[in-house]
Every structure is written in C-alpha cells, then in structure tokens.
C-alpha cells in the first residue's frame, strides 16, 4: 500500500498517487486498484484519503452554497442567473417577493433587472435539473455597492484560511466587508475605493500564490506596507492647512 508522492507535491492529470488501502478524495479517481490525479494541483493525504487541491477548476453547484451571480434574463415567473458554472441557475419570483406572486400585478424587472448582481444560496441542484436559488435569508439579495472580483473557485478555502484566519485578517486590516461566493465571485465593500482595492490586491495575491507556503506572512506584510502608503496621504492634508 505505497504512495507515490510527497506532501504538497505538484501533480498533473494521470499521475499515479497511491495504491492499495487508500481512499479516493477530491480530484482523484480509482482505476485497477490505483489512485490517479484527475486535475493539476497539489496532493495531500488525510487519514488514508488522497486529495488533490486543484489549481485550475470550475464551479459545480452544491445545495447550501452561498454564491454571487448576475441576472441574465427576466422571465415570466423568475430570473435566469449566471453563476459562473457550467449550469445557469433559476431564481423564482415567489422566492423573492414575500407575498404570492401574481404576474398581472408584479413587474419582475422592477425587482431585479438584467445585469443586476445578487448574493444567493443554492436551494437545490442535481444532475437532471439546473440549480434553483433562494434569497430568503438574511444577508442574501441584491448587491447595491462594492466591487466584484473573480477567482478560481478552488482557491476560496485558501482565501478563508484556517478557521477563517486569512479572511478575517484582511477584513480587519482593510476595514472592508467581504462576501466570498463559493463560485469564485467575491464582493468587497469598504468605506473608500483605496481600501477596497487593497483588499482585492491581497485576495489576488492569495489566488496567484495559493500553492506556496508562508503565504499568511506575505499577505500580512503586503497589507502593512500598502496601508502605510495609504495613511500618509490622509495626514499631510491637515498639516498643509495649518501652514
């Protein structure tokens, strides 16, 4: 029952990872008693379970996921939503309106129009049906302000960090609210554009370097340096006024 990799090794699709008493984890498959990688990524082994943390992947809907999507089309009794996945999602009108939906009374495009962005939860999804969304929970619904960015969906856990350490650090350092859509869409809302951009730069760095270690320290450093650059800009102004 050997394994054929070192921890955190970069593997390509088809590379043999383990044989025998191991279990198939994410982005791996079993054939003829051997476990192979199915995506490019970093391998690790957790309790006999061989996982590949993919460096490139797309989002596959899962019920319960919080995602960020945009309205493609306003339909007769709901909206078609692009969730950056192979499948487009549906949002029913009766889910958004807290009262029964009557087509003759309600104009759907006044609630959400094409191009509007929403934070939503996947209510249901299976192989045979496109995902259904819901916004009937606190924190979900139409996005009115902030900046949006897109990352590779498998990087989201890295951005969250161990027990949310990474994301809470970025939040406190930049004073931004950040909503991580599991489909890779991220909403950053701060008091100033500069703060939002700093948070986005930090997230971008995590995405690009997610497969390296010691990342938390580098992100802390980046945030400190960039924040130092932001602050002097605010301070000189009162001094100039004094003179």
């Amino acid at each position, binding site marked *: 029952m050997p394994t054929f990799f*070192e921890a955190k*090794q970069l593997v*390509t699709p*088809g590379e043999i990872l383990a044989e025998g008493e191991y279990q198939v984890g994410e982005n791996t498959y079993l054939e003829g008693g051997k476990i*192979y990688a*199915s995506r*490019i990524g970093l391998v690790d082994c957790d309790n006999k379970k061989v996982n590949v943390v993919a460096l490139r992947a797309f989002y596959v809907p899962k019920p319960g996921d919080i995602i960020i999507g945009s309205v493609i089309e306003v339909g007769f009794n709901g909206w078609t939503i692009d969730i950056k996945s192979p499948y487009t999602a549906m949002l029913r009108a009766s889910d958004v309106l807290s009262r029964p939906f009557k087509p003759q009374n309600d104009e759907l495009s006044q609630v959400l129009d094409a191009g509007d962005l929403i934070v939503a939860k996947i209510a249901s999804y299976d192989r045979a049906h496109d995902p259904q969304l819901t916004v009937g929970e606190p924190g979900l619904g139409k996005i009115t302000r902030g900046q949006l960015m897109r990352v590779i969906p498998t990087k989201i856990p890295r951005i969250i960090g161990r027990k949310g350490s990474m994301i809470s650090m970025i939040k406190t350092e930049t004073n931004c609210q950040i909503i991580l859509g599991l489909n890779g869409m991220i909403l950053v809302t701060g008091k100033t554009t500069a703060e939002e951009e700093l948070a986005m730069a930090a997230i971008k760095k995590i995405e690009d370097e997610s497969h390296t270690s010691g990342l938390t320290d580098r992100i802390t450093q980046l945030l400190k340096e960039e924040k130092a650059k932001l602050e002097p800009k605010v301070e000189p102004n009162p001094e100039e006024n004094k003179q």
Partner: protein
Amino acid sequence: MNDKQEKLIDKKGIRLDGRKADELRSLKMQVGVLPNADGSAYVEHGKNKILVGVFGPREVHPKHLSRPDRMVIKCRYHMAPFSVPERKSPAPSRREVELSKVIRESLEPALFPELYPRTGIDVYIEVLQADGGTRCASITAAALAIADSGIPMRDLVVACAAGKVEDTVVVDLYDAEDKLGAADVPVAYMPNLNAVTLLQMDGILTPDELEKAMNMAIDGCKQIYVMQKEALKNKYMNVKEENKEEEPEE
C-alpha cells in the same frame, strides 16, 4: 524516384533533416497562452506550430446537441491559410473535418463525460504552420489545453507518429518523409494507463514493421509526455521559485 530515395536517408542512417531513425524533432510547449480561453496551449513540434484554446464545460448551443447523460465534446481542427506553402482555403476541407473527428475521439477516453451532463466543451485547434504530423502535435497540444482548463482527465494524451522511409522504420516523420515515405503510423497514447487512443496507418507495412513502428511511436510519446508534464508544471513552478519554496519535484 531513386534520386529522392537517396536523399531521404543516407548510408549512415541519418535522415534528410539530420536526425537518426529514433530521434524526435525538437519540441517546445507552453500552457495558458490565451487569457480569454478557459484553457490553452501552444506547441512547436519541429516546424509545426499549433495553438489550442479550450472552452467549457458550458451550455451547448444549439440546445438539441446536448445530451442528458453526458458532456459533449466538440473539436475543430483548422489550418490557417498561411500554414502551408500553397495558400490553403480557410473553409473546412474534407481532411480537416476528418481530423477533427479523429482528434476528438482520441481525446474522449481521457475525459469523464458522464460527470457533467447537459454541458459541452469546445476544443479549437489552429495550425499556424504545418510540417507533417500535425494531428499528433494537435492531440498533444489539445490535451495540455484541456488539463490547463481544469476539466478532469484520466490522463494526458500524447501523440507521436512512426513510419517507414527507405525500408527503415523511423519515428516522428516530417512533411517530406510523410509524402515520399512508404508508410505513416500516428499513435495517440495515455502513458500512465498504458492505453492507445488513436492508431492509424497510411501506407503498407508488414506485421513486424507495424509492431516496430508502434513501439517506436509509443517510445516517442513517452518522451513527449515528460515535456508535456514539465510544461504544465512550469506555469506554477515560477511562482514557487520566486518565493524560495521547497521544491517537491521528483
């Protein structure tokens, strides 16, 4: 004809372009060259220059082509008008339609179409310069682009040809050998699963020669596979080296 035959391979067994019988042309591969595509690759195989862009999985248009139980794979092999000495009409020719099908079928065993029902992927192969063996170089490049796009794969697919020139079995034929030689055997191969996904033969070979040609082609595939893996990893290794990380490479 005798004149030509003497040119193709000399007494020492050196071929017209200076290679030995079992020597490949030089290869260069790069991954992620097209930011607009979900996955992309650029391969130079001798004088062949091939660019591949992969899109998807995404909704299939027109809708009736989608399958409720699996992902459909669309593949388009196309030669640029300037890829050959005589201008090639940009309209898809009989040969290109056939090669598109052949390449699609050689890639399909490497994928998991049942995982993403009702979707499709598009593989666009553009031959910028052709010098014999473009179908093999296209398969190599397409497999790289698919891996780069994050579509799950059983294995990378590598392709290499072998054939007969002047009664000698040689590997990786180029244009002149392909046209004047006796036979051409392109082979696509999944190295880790030890499975052949494409085997064609153009010309006449004895059973022994065919076996020898196939083995040579598979050996060639294995050599190309090493470079393919390298190319995929290179995209991410650069970042790693910059940060002076431990290098967990074999």
